[in-house]
């Protein structure tokens, strides 16, 4: 028998869900609110919530002091580039793991994931040196490569999960129909896995967009993305909370909007295969 849901219970559940949602969203909301305050109001005690003199001053100062568009463009290239490069590499890898698994496939998958367990700072020194030697420090290319490598295990894992849901017989049919391996992946597998590929793409753009460790350590000025843009407003000499908040709001706005419009795709992609 289905569980009976009383209206009271439903209302309570809704209230709890909203409560948790607001709790999670609160830091972002606070940041956005602070970005409209003056520096004095931003650090006032007790803090003011909504009743302050709304001002756009912080935004104009931030815009004057640094070139937002340059950072934004770097972020777009680094997040987009690393994700697309990662997908191109991961599709054949996930194909072979999903459709021609060997005894070691599971081990390889786990090993790939285990690279995510190492704290990033553990390999900072060697990677920094490699970057210097190769002359790719503070270049967008360098960051595309390093972020692609960081997220590759996740991309492969996600695609592997989606591919496993595709019946092998359809790929065999393509093979019988005369498709080469490349054509099989291009015309049959990829279009069929498109929902999965799209959500992998979205999630990885978000992860790469928000990645702060490598982007801060491996850039200085030329290739610095929005994470560096935020960081440049948190200085030890004196904290300008309102300006820092304005910079943060500007940095997260594009990805928030992207996430908002693609949330349906993201959720359906992430729960894909969970229920059958």
């Amino acid at each position, binding site marked *: 028998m289905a569980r009976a849901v009383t209206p009271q219970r439903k209302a309570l559940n809704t209230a709890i869900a909203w409560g948790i949602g607001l709790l999670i969203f609160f830091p972002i909301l606070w940041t956005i609110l602070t970005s409209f305050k003056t520096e004095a109001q931003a650090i006032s005690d007790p803090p003011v919530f909504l009743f302050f003199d709304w001002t756009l001053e912080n935004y104009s100062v931030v815009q004057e002091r640094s070139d937002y568009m340059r950072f934004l463009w770097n972020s777009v290239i680094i997040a987009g580039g690393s994700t697309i490069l990662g997908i191109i590499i991961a599709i054949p890898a996930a194909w072979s793991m999903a459709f021609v698994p060997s005894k070691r496939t599971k081990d390889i998958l786990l090993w790939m994931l285990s690279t995510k367990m190492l704290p990033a700072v553990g390999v900072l020194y060697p990677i920094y040196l490699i970057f210097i030697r190769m002359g790719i420090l503070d270049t967008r290319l360098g960051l595309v490569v390093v972020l692609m490598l960081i997220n590759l295990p996740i991309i492969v894992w996600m695609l592997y999960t989606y591919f496993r849901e595709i019946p092998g*017989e359809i790929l065999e*049919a393509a*093979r*019988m*129909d*005369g498709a*080469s391996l490349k054509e099989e992946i291009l015309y049959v597998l990829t279009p069929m896995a498109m929902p999965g590929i799209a959500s992998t793409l979205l999630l990885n753009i978000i992860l790469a967009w928000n990645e702060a460790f490598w982007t801060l350590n491996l850039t200085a000025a030329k290739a610095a993305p929005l994470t560096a843009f935020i960081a440049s407003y948190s200085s030890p000499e004196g904290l300008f909370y309102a300006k820092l908040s304005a910079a943060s709001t500007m940095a997260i706005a594009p990805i928030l909007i992207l996430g908002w419009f693609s949330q349906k795709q993201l959720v359906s992609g992430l729960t894909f295969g969970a229920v059958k």
Partner: protein
Amino acid sequence: MGQIKLESVTKSFGPVEVIPPLDLTIEDGEFTVFVGPSGCGKSTLLRLIAGLEDITSGKISIDGQDATHVPPAKRGLAMVFQSYALYPHMSVRKNIAFPMKMAGVPVDEQNRRIESAAAALNLTDYLDRRPGQLSGGQRQRVAIGRAIVREPGAFLFDEPLSNLDAALRVGMRLEISELHKRLKTTMIYVTHDQVEAMTMADKIVVLQAGVIEQVGSPLELYRAPRNVFVAGFIGSPKMNLLTGPEAAKHNAHTIGTRPEHIAISQTEGTWSGTIGVSEHLGSDTFFHVKCDAFEDPLTVRAGGEVALKYGDKVFLTPDLTQLHRFDAQGLRIA
């Protein structure tokens, strides 16, 4: 175009040998059915011919050419899968066009072949639909259409009708048989359903545990099964197989008699028994008769109007001219 020859072909999955050395020739234009119980290796054998599985040793030749290491796409064979394996993201038209697109057939020619295949398979009105919007029978037709347009050397069918309901199955069976008569292309058809095998095949290959038990025309197999397994497998309802003193009377370890070769009477006969379950098909009635002399009930065919009911005493008389005799190894005694 389409003689397929297997010479000492074997297949092992790890340490498990699923096909011991096997030789088989399928002649050009023949409709050959591989039949056997589940797990007998019939689908594996088909996949070996298709090239979807590599053989462990031996040789496969198609039209005299060694195809052992030729990839599936280059063998000139088309396959219809049990699950239809249509491309869900493509329209029916694109599904059917796919093998031609891969082969680089000019678009005009592609369209001509699509139209003619669609007309032959009653798919003309559905060309712009997606497979998800079609019924099971229509999907199967699309899969067949996709196979036809390639003009392959041979068609391979892997239990193509087992996902259809009974009525559709009979209809599709006729369509496939008719297709074969029209195209005269070699067809290899895998099924576990001996009725399909009997009704469609020119040649039946009965398999058990990867071993060919017998090869022959449906009636050859029916009339002269080479061993007890084939005797029991071919024919519906099954042949009655008897061992013990009754078999010894005929100098055999096992004797077999088909349901239609036993006369049923209420007054006299060789074996006495009582009627158990009876199956009325209208044209025929199958009685399951529990005889005093045997442990298992015998199946007997009688006319559709025979009025016997549960518990009636009857006598059975086998037609001795139609008796099958087998030795202790299960092999037929001539």
